[in-house]
């Protein structure tokens, strides 16, 4: 079987005709497999959804219990057969519940990675490489300029600034699903014990993360506090709020933003960020390369992001590669630095 018979890029997303399933469809379909809960990958309105327990829970929290007509839980590592196709979910290390989807039939194995990272994250299961014939990768940070520094060093920058400016509130923009909770957990690992104040848009997901055992520590809602009294505290909010009037009511706020995009100075300046924190939930350039090699795949498909550079690099090391130019990904979270408007209002 040729790979193009097993999975086909369509306007709705990747489609497997043998099993009649779509992976991360961007429009309503009959049967959908979902890699993770970010709203550009996990949309409401499908007939049936197969995803990890955590991803199903996140979709229910965001869209209500009626987000799909029927749902089925995928246990990481376990095989499910749909017609002649074997399906397996394997941790992707991106956010809580995120998974790669292994699609296999007649000896041909394709791995759809969804979004993934290789860096340690205390809030979700780590990425597990799966050997395969075709590896379908994202390329959000698919340029050699993206080399993420260790996340704990970036968090140390934040805590150092908090120490230096005890009279100012540090407002950290972070995507509401995954990044915000990871930042909280990293702050705890660094030994910070004061309550962390959160924007209302983060409440539901942060509670969910905490109930799943993520070490986020004590959080308090900003709305239940006197903003004027939060000098010296850390506040976490969706990125769209850092430049809002909302953020200006804190004492002399320091604007921080936790994102892989903060590697590019202009990106930080465009958003008025004074304290850029390069913390990403996506693989950087080096990790994209390392992961592609680890899978042993001879053919690489690139779904979204900076596909051109990654495809070019694959060519230089003798791997066959092509961009899929899938449209519709990157509306939430870092896959596009710009899509959090929806993020802020969704919850």
């Amino acid at each position: 079987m040729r790979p193009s018979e097993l999975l086909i890029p369509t306007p709705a997303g990747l489609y497997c005709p043998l099993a009649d399933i779509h992976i991360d469809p961007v429009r309503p379909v009959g049967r959908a497999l979902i890699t993770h809960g970010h709203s550009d990958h996990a949309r409401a309105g499908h007939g049936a959804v197969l995803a990890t327990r955590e991803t199903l829970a996140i979709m229910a929290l965001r869209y209500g219990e009626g987000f799909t007509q029927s749902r089925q839980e995928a246990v990481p590592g376990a095989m499910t057969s749909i017609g002649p196709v074997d399906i397996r979910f394997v941790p992707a290390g991106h956010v809580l519940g995120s998974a790669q989807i292994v699609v296999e039939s007649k000896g041909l194995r394709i791995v759809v990675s969804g979004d993934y990272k290789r860096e340690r994250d205390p809030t979700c299961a780590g990425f597990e490489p799966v050997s395969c014939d075709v590896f379908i990768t994202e390329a959000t940070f698919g340029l050699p300029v993206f080399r993420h520094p260790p996340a704990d060093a970036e968090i140390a920058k934040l805590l150092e600034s908090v120490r230096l400016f005890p009279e100012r509130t540090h407002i950290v923009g972070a995507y509401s699903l995954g990044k915000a909770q990871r930042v909280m957990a990293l702050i705890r690992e660094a030994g910070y014990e004061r309550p962390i104040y959160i924007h209302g848009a983060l409440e539901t997901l942060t509670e969910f993360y905490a109930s799943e055992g993520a070490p986020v520590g004590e959080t308090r809602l900003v709305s239940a506090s006197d903003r004027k009294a939060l000098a010296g505290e850390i506040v976490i909010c969706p990125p769209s709020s850092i430049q809002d009037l909302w953020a200006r009511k804190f004492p002399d706020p320091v604007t921080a933003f936790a994102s892989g995009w903060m590697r590019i100075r202009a990106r930080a300046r465009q958003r008025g960020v004074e304290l850029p924190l390069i913390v990403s939930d996506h693989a950087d350039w080096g990790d994209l390369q390392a992961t592609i090699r680890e899978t042993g795949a001879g053919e690489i498909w690139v779904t979204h992001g900076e596909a051109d550079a990654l495809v070019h690099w694959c060519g230089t090391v003798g791997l066959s590669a092509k961009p899929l130019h899938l449209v519709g990904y990157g509306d939430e979270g870092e896959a596009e630095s710009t899509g959090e408007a929806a993020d802020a209002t969704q919850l």
Partner: protein
Amino acid sequence: MNRFAWLLDRLAYEPRRNAKLALIADYLRTTPDPDRGLALAAMTGGLVFQNAKPGLIRALIAERTDPVLFALSYDYVGDLSETVALMWPARHGANAAPHLPDVVSGLRNSGKTDLPRLIASWLDALDETGRWALLKLITGALRIGVSSRLAKTAAASLGDVEPDEIEQVWHGLEPPYEPLFAWLEGRGPRPAATDPAPFRPAMLSHPIEEGDFDKLVPAEFQAEWKWDGIRVQAVSGTRADGARITRLYSRTGEDIGASFPDVTEALVLDGALDGELLVRRENAVQSFNTLQQRLNRKSVTGKMLAEYPAHIRAYDLLVDGEEDIRDLPLVERRKRLVAFVARLSSAVVDLSPPIAFSDWEELAAARADPEASGAGVDAEAVEGCMIKRLDSPYLPGRPKGYWYKWKRDARLVDCVLMYAQRGHGKRSSFYSDFTFGVWRTTEEGEELVPVGKAYFGFTDEELLELDRFVRRNTLNRFGPVREVTHEAGKGLVLEVAFEGLQRSTRHKSGLAMRFPRISRIRWDKPPREADRIEALETLLPGQG
């Protein structure tokens, strides 16, 4: 170097002027000589290295990276120094980070053959921020939102002096400015102002608002044409040894005299003129497009001097002989200016004429028709009027209540977005350079023809929407350029504002817009309702 890099890094992210001043002042206060003086020189454009050029940096990175990956990265980041700083392969076991004075003397004194090895060894030893700062230093354009004036203002705060006082002694000083710091810190005398032709900060105007006219009394003002050229300060003075020193400063105090010898050699009297730099040919002022041929040239050919003769249209006098007359009211300065220009008696310096008016309605009529209201053949280079209080002293900066600009209304046209490219600088990594077109009829039917390109006018939020539109509606990719959907029923209409229109052989449409910018995004309008080329052609000079 690390401390200097830290300063540049902090400044690059700091949007507030006062915080920038505090950062620079704190650095200057706590950093020893000669490091702080070299840093001040870097921020005031005072460090120029003959042999260290961007081309050298490009060559170094080309030896170490794949050219396609570099090109894609540079296109994305939009800044050479930053791209190289981020892509430079780390080398373990490199030597300790270099010190700023060593870097400066290395860049100054090394020959072309030694420099690449030297710079590479520094880049190996520095971290990402250090590499970025070093490359900014080498390429000369810091672009961290710090003007020369701001850096000098920060330096002034070390002592109890006004920034203007630093300006007065500045040209007599050399990096690392040890006598300057000694003076500011009360350890030494005021440096002698040896420069006979210093820059004096320009006086700027406010845009006039609709309601202002009710409050302003016409008889208290004079009006002049607002010329569409380059604001300059032409200063000439005599050095102690009798030599004439002449400088042509831009509005921000950069000396651009080397590009305009035809003007500087005409300034043979001591004094400081404020005026507009223009190109004047056959007794008529030419459009800004023509002036552009003379801008940003390192060397000037005789052919250029003959084809694009530069000219100063003077509107103020700051220094008359040795006398600083900035405190005199404008009406007095004007009399001195008239006499000064007459004494100068040069073909390349003339007076900006006043506009006769007795009330604001009359001025409005003149602004609407400069050609018939005194500007005559020069009307093409008029972009509105200036309104100045007759009693205004010449004050630095943008003081309120003295000078107003009343620009000509912009032309508006609805165009269709056709191509987009990633921007540089502030807009880098977003699709922010937009090429747009209007409809025309050809033998094959209706088609869009590109008429211009704009990369500003929209808000940051609109930029995000435009960027998303481009990425979602890409038809084709030509290297860094994306072609976006542009059909009668599908595409994006942009309302484009511009100042003027010229015939141009360089553009397919035969037209060139002056100062085009996106004034509104018409998400509501289908492309078929965008404007036609005929609508633009009626706006050409001499067409109505």
